[in-house]
C-alpha cells in the first residue's frame, strides 16, 4: 500500500493548525464574496428554470402570469388554485435543495435522532387565527403565526382547532397537527379523517404556534378554524 505523508498531514489540518489571530480575513466580507458567487450560479440555474416553466405554460395553453404553487400556503383564489394545481410537476426524484429553517423551531429540533429533517419544507404562514384555507404538499409543515406572534393561552383556557379536508382528489390525506412551544414541536394528533378537532391545553401566559404537517403522498387542502374557550 502506498500513502503520501503530505496527504496524511492535510487530513490532520484540524489538529495541526493553530489559528493565527493576527491578520485575518473578515468573515462578513467572506460571506459577501461567497454568496455573490453562489448567487451567480443560482441565477444561471434560475434562467433555465424560468425557460422550462415558460415552455410548460405555453404547452398547457396557459396564458398570463400565473404564479406556480409552492409546497404549501394560503388559498386566496379557489379558481386560480385549481388551474395552477395541474401545473405542478410530480417529484422527479431530484434532491430537495430547499433549506429547512424556521424562526419558531430551534435548529436542533428540525432534525430527528438520525439526522433526518422533520419535514421536507417548513413554511411560516401569517394568519389571524380565525379561519383560513390552506394547501399543504406532501412532507410540508406549516407553522402558523400572527405577524410573528403565536397564540397566548389564558388561565384555564384552551384553543380548539377544527380542521376539515377538502382535497381535489376527494380522499382525505394524513395530517399531523401539533404546536410549537419554546421552539420545539409537539404532535397532538395524527389521522386521516375528513374532520379533525384538536385542543391545545396550555399553561397560562405561554405562547403556542400551531402547526400542520402533511404526511400523505398527495397534496391536501384544509379549512381550519380556531376557537378559544
Amino acid at each position, binding site marked *: 500500500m502506498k500513502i503520501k505523508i503530505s*496527504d496524511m498531514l492535510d487530513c490532520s489540518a*484540524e489538529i495541526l493548525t493553530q489559528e493565527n489571530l493576527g491578520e*485575518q480575513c473578515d468573515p462578513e466580507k467572506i460571506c459577501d464574496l461567497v454568496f455573490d458567487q453562489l448567487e451567480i450560479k443560482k441565477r444561471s440555474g434560475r434562467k433555465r428554470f424560468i425557460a422550462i416553466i415558460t415552455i410548460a405554460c405555453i404547452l398547457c395553453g396557459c396564458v398570463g402570469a400565473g404564479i406556480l404553487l409552492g409546497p404549501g400556503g394560503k388559498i386566496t383564489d379557489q379558481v386560480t388554485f385549481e388551474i395552477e394545481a395541474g401545473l405542478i410537476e410530480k417529484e422527479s426524484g431530484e434532491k430537495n435543495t430547499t433549506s429547512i429553517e424556521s424562526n419558531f423551531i430551534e435548529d436542533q429540533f428540525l432534525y430527528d435522532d438520525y*439526522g433526518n429533517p422533520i419535514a421536507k419544507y417548513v413554511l411560516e404562514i401569517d394568519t389571524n387565527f380565525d379561519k383560513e384555507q390552506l394547501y399543504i404538499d406532501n412532507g410540508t409543515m406549516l407553522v402558523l403565526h400572527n405577524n410573528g406572534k403565536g397564540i397566548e393561552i389564558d388561565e384555564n383556557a384552551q384553543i380548539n382547532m377544527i380542521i376539515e379536508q377538502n382535497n381535489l382528489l376527494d380522499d382525505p390525506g394524513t395530517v399531523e397537527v401539533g404546536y410549537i412551544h419554546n421552539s420545539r414541536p409537539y404532535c397532538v394528533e395524527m389521522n386521516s379523517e375528513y374532520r379533525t378537532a384538536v385542543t391545545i391545553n396550555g399553561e397560562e401566559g405561554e405562547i403556542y404556534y400551531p402547526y400542520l404537517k402533511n404526511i400523505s403522498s398527495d397534496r391536501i387542502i384544509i379549512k381550519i378554524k380556531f376557537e378559544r374557550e
Partner: protein
Amino acid sequence: MNERILLMRLKHKSERALTEVIERYTAYVTTIIREILNDKATAEDVEELVADTFIALWTTAERIDYIHYSSLKAYIGMIARNKAKDFLRTHKNINLELYDDVLVIDDGVEKKILQKEQQQYIKDLLNRLKPEDRKIFLLYYYQYIKIDEIASIMQMNPQTVKTRLRRGRETLRILLSDEENIAYEDKD
C-alpha cells in the same frame, strides 16, 4: 449549533448554516491558506481562496459522509490546503514536491485509510517523536519548507535534518504497518 447539525443543514442547502460555518471557520481557513502561501499571494488572493474553500464546501456538502471524517472542521481544512496548493501550482507555477513523500507499507491489498484514521496515525506519530523531530517533520511535510531553510531555522546541518526526517518517516511506516515495539534510537 453542533457540527453534525451544521453539516445536515448544509446538505439541505441552508444558507444560514453556511453563514454560521463561515463565521466559525474563517480564521482557521485563513491561517491554513497563509501557512502554505506565505508571501507568495496578496491579501485579495487569500480572501478569494478562503471564499473558494467555503464555496467548495457548499457544493460538495451533499456528498460528505460524516462518519468517515473526524469533523466538519477537518474536511474544511483539507479543502483549504488543496485550494492553496492548487493556487501555487496554477498561478505561481510552484509545485510543492517533497523528497520521499510516499510511504510503501506492504505488498498487501491496497486499502483506503479514512481521514479520521489518518489523523489518528499522525497524532500517534507526533506523540512518539521528540519535540525537535516533530518540529522538523511538520516544517517539511506540512509547511513545505525546504531542507536548507529548516536547517537554518533549527541551526543544524542539512544532513541532520534529513536524518531526522527519515526517523519520522520510519516511525510512521511502522505505525501504519501495525508493527509493535517501535525502536526509536537517538542517533545524534
